[in-house]
């Protein structure tokens, strides 16, 4: 199932957008990141370590660093790259179609 997130240009490079599960109907909140390689990636929003929103994190290249305890995740694969996270984040497919973001939920 695909959820129409809206125009891709609403997320400047190096920033992220939180897609609330109550809006998208997905099983969980999802963060869409506009990485510094120019591409868009989507991960589960909640850090796998403790309660924190990855959409509020610091994007560096194609990684995001959790705002709270600096666990970092690969935006492409969801892989937990450093402590304190030991569990990978779930990834979601996101595409830009005619300038619109489509999130596969």
């Amino acid at each position: 199932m695909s959820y129409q997130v809206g125009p891709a240009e609403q997320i400047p490079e190096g920033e992220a957008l939180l897609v609330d599960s109550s809006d998208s109907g997905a099983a969980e909140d999802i963060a869409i990141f506009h990485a510094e390689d120019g591409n868009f990636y989507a991960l589960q929003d909640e850090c796998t370590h403790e309660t924190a929103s990855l959409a509020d994190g610091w994007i560096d290249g194609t990684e995001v660093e959790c705002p709270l305890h600096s666990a970092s995740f690969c935006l492409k694969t969801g892989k937990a790259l450093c402590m304190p996270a030991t569990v990978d984040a779930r990834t979601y497919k996101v595409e830009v179609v005619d300038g619109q973001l489509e999130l596969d939920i």
Partner: protein
Amino acid sequence: MDNSNSISSMARVQIVGAGVAGFTLTRELIQRGYRGEIVLCDPQGLPYDRPPLSKALRREYFMPASWYAEHGVQLRTEAINDPALPEAADEWLVLATGSRAKKLTVPGAEHALSLHTADEAELIARRLDQGMFAMPVAIIGAGLVGAEFASAARQAGAQVTLYSASSAPLARVLGEEMARELHAAHRRNGVTCVDAAVTEVGPDYVVAAGQRHEAALIVAAVGAEADTTVAEGLGLVVDDGILVDDAQRVIGQQQVLAIGDAARRVDHPRAVHWEAAMDDAAIAAAVITGQPAPSRKVDWFWSDRHDAHVEVVGDFTRASSHISRLGRRGNLEAVFGLDSAGNLVAASMVDGGLLSKALRRLMDAGVTPTAEQLADPSVGPRELAKAGRS
């Protein structure tokens, strides 16, 4: 017989101590494809993370037991007091023995519990749980552990009194102004602060400034010191920590490394935080696997108390002047420390969001924003990080 196989079957790393340093080394070795035997020894059992102990009185395992089995890691829980010093070039001993709680040295100190291990945290949690509502709890020492436990005990409904000889504990760690502000915040959160040293402890009381205060639970949090018992037993060089070089090699030893709170690099103060321990572990893993060592990052740690997320980047002992950043309501958001040459060397902040990330990057790059940028709360983290680049 295949020669390469016989070499790799002898290769071995024995890690003594399974805190964040010992565990991270194990994980790094696995990630780097180390093919020798990994033996991780800690009498405390399945390795757990320390930060949640004083924040939530909870034991949180790094990984389930199955993870170690899956990666062929041997977990040993017998106490290792005198490990053999390795001789072969592919045998390593890594001391990650951490720290131990400093002992309170006043009369009756045996009545105070300490909060350093998971067993101790769980015992304290049970005592709080079984205690009556508004049970009087005395905490001796208002450092990071004392302050975090004060917050946890308040949340558990206890009536908390925090004893500290200083009204700005941790000034050398947080910067004086932040230390004073955070200590004052205890009072706003219902903690009674007695700024006087405790001179005597009894089974159900403490004495401070000549006054006797009742307490049903007494916890001493008067700091930690490097646990160097094993190193001393082996005759290694110890001086406020096991002395190591920049590659974490114990001075005078080829195959013995020391990492984490128990180790101290020659000519550096002993690093005592979680992330520094992980940096040590990554460097040790690179040394063992013969790979280039990663660079050490600027110091960073966090502390949580009364809903405030406190972060410190860098080292305030290097700072000779301070700049404060006040929020719109006059609240203290951050304190920056500059050295005598005017370089940014330290920062402490409350609920700073991404500010700590910007500051870590600035300090790693050796860049100092202007005093105006630092003091201005409207200069956000990204802008600050960019300001440094121009």
